[in-house]
């Protein structure tokens, strides 16, 4: 066979020598500055929360692989990413036992039950967060101010609360820009929001670092740039139109862009390779749907933040988006079903 001059093989002929592990590891690299800033801004509490979710996600993955008598898939770094992302979307003083539970749910219910990496319908980290949001709504909306003076010297009592017991509420608490806007109609300073000097979930505050992480991944071609561009573009256009209609009621596009989990969600969560569409046009439609849902939920919904639900809903319909915009096979009639 080797003496043949013409090698015949089926496509694909050009293979990038990049494995799943490499991509996942690079996503972890891109997330590390974000996590680092979270620790800098919120102190030991945030570090403990992020570590707990990461350890519980990796532990769950390992344990479930053992339970189903498969080789442990911890080595592909995807569980680390899910754990990190979950930790980055939780409030800084979130009780650790709840964070641990969230990590278990994210992997077991968000990923493993569908068959592991490559089969998950939804972004695992967001599944974990959605369950936590429904189970412990009070703890999920108890915020802590950024850059507190004692953030490196003291651990919040609510972080260390006993499992199954109510977290003790700290005296100090800080409203996020979104909840301040929703309930008190206060608009936070834009530069504060871009640089992360605001209250919020541990990893969602510093928009600049998140953007840099995204740009790194896009340059290395490990992320589909269309998704974040479509999401952020839709949000800018839609909220811009609303802002032009009545600046008294609707927040400016800059505020919409830098507040809450939009940056983190658009760049690191909506781009989940498994749960997003694969066709170029489908990806844009998917991003636009997320953008529209975010604006609608934030402005007209009962909740201050809607990125999580927007992404989960778009994940659910992403296979259908691909199906609907699939090109007609040349030579077939319009009525022909390709399935």
């Amino acid at each position: 066979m080797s003496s043949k001059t013409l090698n015949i093989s089926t496509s694909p002929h050009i293979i990038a020598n990049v494995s799943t592990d490499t991509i996942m590891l690079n996503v972890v690299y891109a997330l590390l500055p974000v996590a680092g800033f979270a620790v800098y801004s919120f102190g030991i509490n945030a570090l403990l929360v992020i570590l707990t979710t990461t350890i519980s996600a990796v532990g769950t993955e390992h344990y479930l692989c053992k339970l189903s008598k498969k080789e442990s898939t911890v080595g592909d770094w995807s569980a680390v990413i899910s754990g990190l992302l979950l930790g980055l979307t939780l409030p800084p003083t979130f009780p650790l036992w709840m964070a641990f539970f969230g990590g278990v749910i994210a992997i077991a219910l968000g990923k493993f039950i569908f068959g592991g990496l490559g089969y998950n319908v939804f972004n695992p980290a967001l599944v974990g967060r959605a369950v936590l949001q429904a189970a412990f709504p009070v703890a999920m909306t108890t915020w802590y101010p950024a850059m507190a003076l004692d953030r490196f010297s003291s651990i919040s009592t609510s972080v260390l609360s006993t499992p199954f017991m109510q977290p003790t509420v700290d005296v100090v608490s800080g409203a996020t820009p979104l909840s301040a806007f929703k309930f008190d109609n206060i608009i936070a300073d834009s530069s504060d929001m871009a640089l992360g000097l605001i209250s919020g979930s541990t990893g969602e505050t510093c928009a600049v670092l998140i953007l840099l992480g995204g740009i790194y991944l896009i340059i290395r071609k490990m992320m589909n740039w269309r998704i974040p561009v479509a999401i952020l573009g839709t949000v800018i256009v839609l909220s811009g139109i609303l802002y032009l209609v009545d600046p008294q009621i609707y927040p400016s596009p800059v505020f919409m862009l830098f507040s809450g989990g939009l940056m983190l969600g658009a760049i690191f969560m909506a781009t989940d390779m498994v749960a997003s569409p694969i066709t170029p046009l489908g990806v844009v439609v998917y991003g636009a749907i997320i953008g529209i849902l975010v604006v609608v939920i934030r402005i007209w919904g009962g909740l201050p933040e809607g990125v999580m639900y927007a992404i989960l809903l778009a994940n659910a319909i992403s296979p259908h988006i691909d199906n609907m915009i699939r090109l007609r096979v040349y030579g077939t009639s319009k009525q022909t079903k390709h399935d």
Partner: protein
Amino acid sequence: MKSQESISKNSEEFLKGIWRENPVFVAVLGMCPALAVTNSAINGLAMGLATTFVLFFSSTLVSLFRSFIPKQVRITTFIVIIATFVTVVDMLLAAWVPDIHKELGAFIALIVVNCLILGRQEAFSSKNPVGYSMLDALGMSIGFTIALLSIGVIREILGNGSLFNIDLFGQNFEPWIIMILPPGGFLVLGFLLLCFNRVLNKKSS
């Protein structure tokens, strides 16, 4: 010899509903009440007992009249019989335990369309003698009640920190709100199905 055989058949008809053919965990029938009213143990138990009453008397009656019911209108006849007993149990609950009756609401009337009950009439009572039908109905409804009660117990303990309205963990317990919401029903049912199937698979292999 003959009496021994009939005893083993009797216990077989009775026990299959509780374990091997459990209506909720194996046949996955009657999902509407199993998910909708099991947010507390007492609701689950009440729904289970109400279904027991309806299933037992409907099965007995259908079995008694099985040779008189024309084949063409059998489903209608079953439904009329079932609806009669549902009306009875509806009124009984309203008279004796008005609080639970209020909480179960429309789901008592919906026992009529519980596929478990109609399924037993069609598959068993209309073809078998009265004695077996009664045993079958009792076994099935006990299995159903156990399933609803266990879902209700788990959801109430986690979602409210109590069991049969008795506080278990004191004031500081953090309730898992999701457990008393509809998603909690699906999560607990799924988890119990997983455990049940695992045990059954282990036994058969």
